[in-house]
């Protein structure tokens, strides 16, 4: 039984088909990347998976539960976590409170008291190495620190599936390598499936994912192991265009 199963999922915004008949599965504990150029429909696909808005057609199953019509917070309770491209920590709350909010309302939230959530938050603060910032408002952190707080907040939800939206956008190669190894570590320690969305940083894709889904104009282009996907001529064409000699003059 796959962890997540999307079947013929379609989303339209007026006349624009943002996600077009997407079908794929994600297994427990899998490390996967969704890639595609700007406008390919990756963020829309993420939003459909975790219920920011509903799909127009198709079904989404999470561990055999049909979640197609579930609101976002119910999907979170079932075990979906999410980070955003531009980190969105709760600015006025402290780092500890931000992460504790994840623990309080996430998959295990209903059994966790506020005090227990604060203790859990401390564990994740140590994991991301921000112990010095524990009691500072998250709004005052640097962008990378905010990103880490957001990852910790999502992990504190105890998800089975973590959707990471452009976790490495705007980072230098050094930071990317660090983030890649950090993400690999948390996947090992938490034992969760991670889907990372990446626009064009192939260094991250190659280092991170075992399998790659490439989206193009809202549709699924390839769904292959990473190595094959990154050398697939169709993928190269989407990113770089065809070689000049293949065009008829």
């Amino acid at each position, binding site marked *: 039984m796959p962890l997540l199963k999307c079947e013929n999922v379609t989303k339209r915004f007026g006349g624009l088909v943002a996600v077009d008949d997407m079908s794929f599965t994600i297994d427990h504990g899998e490390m996967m990347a969704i890639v595609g150029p700007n406008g390919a429909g990756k963020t829309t696909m993420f939003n459909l998976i*975790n*219920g*920011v808005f509903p799909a127009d057609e198709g079904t989404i199953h999470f561990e055999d539960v049909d979640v197609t019509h579930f*609101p*976002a*917070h119910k999907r*979170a*309770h079932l075990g979906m976590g*999410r980070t*955003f491209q531009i980190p*969105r920590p*709760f*600015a*006025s*709350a402290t780092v500890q*409170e931000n992460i*504790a*909010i*994840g623990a*309080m*309302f*996430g*998959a295990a*939230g209903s059994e966790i008291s*506020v*005090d227990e959530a*604060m203790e859990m938050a401390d564990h994740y603060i140590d994991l991301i190495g921000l112990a010095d910032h524990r009691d500072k408002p998250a709004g005052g952190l640097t962008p990378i620190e905010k990103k880490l707080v957001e990852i910790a*907040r999502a992990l504190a*939800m105890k998800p089975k599936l973590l959707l990471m939206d452009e976790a490495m956008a705007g980072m230098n190669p050094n930071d990317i390598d660090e983030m890649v190894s950090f993400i690999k570590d948390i996947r090992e320690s938490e034992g969760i499936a991670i889907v990372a969305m990446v626009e064009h940083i192939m260094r991250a894709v190659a280092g991170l994912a075992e399998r790659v889904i490439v989206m193009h104009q809202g549709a699924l282009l390839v769904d292959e192991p990473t190595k094959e996907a990154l050398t697939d001529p169709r993928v190269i064409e989407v990113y770089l265009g065809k070689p000049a000699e293949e065009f008829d003059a």
Partner: protein
Amino acid sequence: MKRAHKYLPIFPVLFAYGALLGYGLFFPGKWQLVSQLAFYCTLGQAFNLFMGMTGYVDFGYVAFMGVGTYGMAISIYHLSDKGLGLGIIVIGLILAAVFSTLLSLAVGAVALRLRGAYFAIATIGVNEGFRYLIEGARIWNGSEGMIFTRHMKQALGKPAAMAIGTFWADIMMFGIAILAAVLTLIYMRNKVGYALTALREDEDAAKVMGINVTKYKIIAFITSSVLAGLLGATAWALKLQYVYPEDVFEIHYTVEAIIIVLLGGAGTLLGPIVGGLIYGITKYYLAIVLPGFQLLIFAPIIVAIIVLFPEGTIGILKQKVMGTPLQKYII
């Protein structure tokens, strides 16, 4: 944070209300001012529970005070000859709470689906709509209002009716203020408060974190509305002993509530007290020093304070005491 420590900030609240009450009791001739200040503090405290904690601005807020006033009026008007004594006031408070709950459920079911400016605009209509409904459909005597001074005297005797209007209604108002503050603190220290902080900062992110934002918005909305209903029932119905729709469905009071919350610091516990005192005292003395011009002077003062200190008095104070022992008390 230790369990007992979490509720320490209630002490400055009790101290502030105790001092205000003491000032009124022991300084002759100041009760009128104290009553006015207590009204503003209570209004701010009740309004803050929704606006401050969720970031939603409800321009129709005074409608909850209005229906609360009617709740008390109806009880006294219709039950004065039943020999219930003070029971009519208890029934009045219950009716005020029920009316404001029902109205908040009706408004919330529609308006809480909207965000930001759309929510604000939708709620403006509630207030005006309700007033015209009462006047046009002649509900509860329509625009003629309800005058129940006589009924109160009949039910409770003349001295008791007088004492309630001039003193005990104000004491009840203090009680509502403290109730509002206690509820605010309890919410802040429990999941409700964290959910509200999250949805105030970023509603979409809050949903994705597993927060049922609709549920928590409604909790805050109903709590805040019921407190407004109780405030209307005491500060207006019991004190004035009459009610006219054009008096109680008056948007002016909502604007005052917004100003008080912003002056003190939205979403803080002590903010509404500080905001209510600043607003009430300034308004009172401006009316004495510059009668007729007070609003002209007052408006730029308010604009200046809100521009200079967007986080409000308590917001600034919180930053100042961070890291000191006072931090535990100022929120």
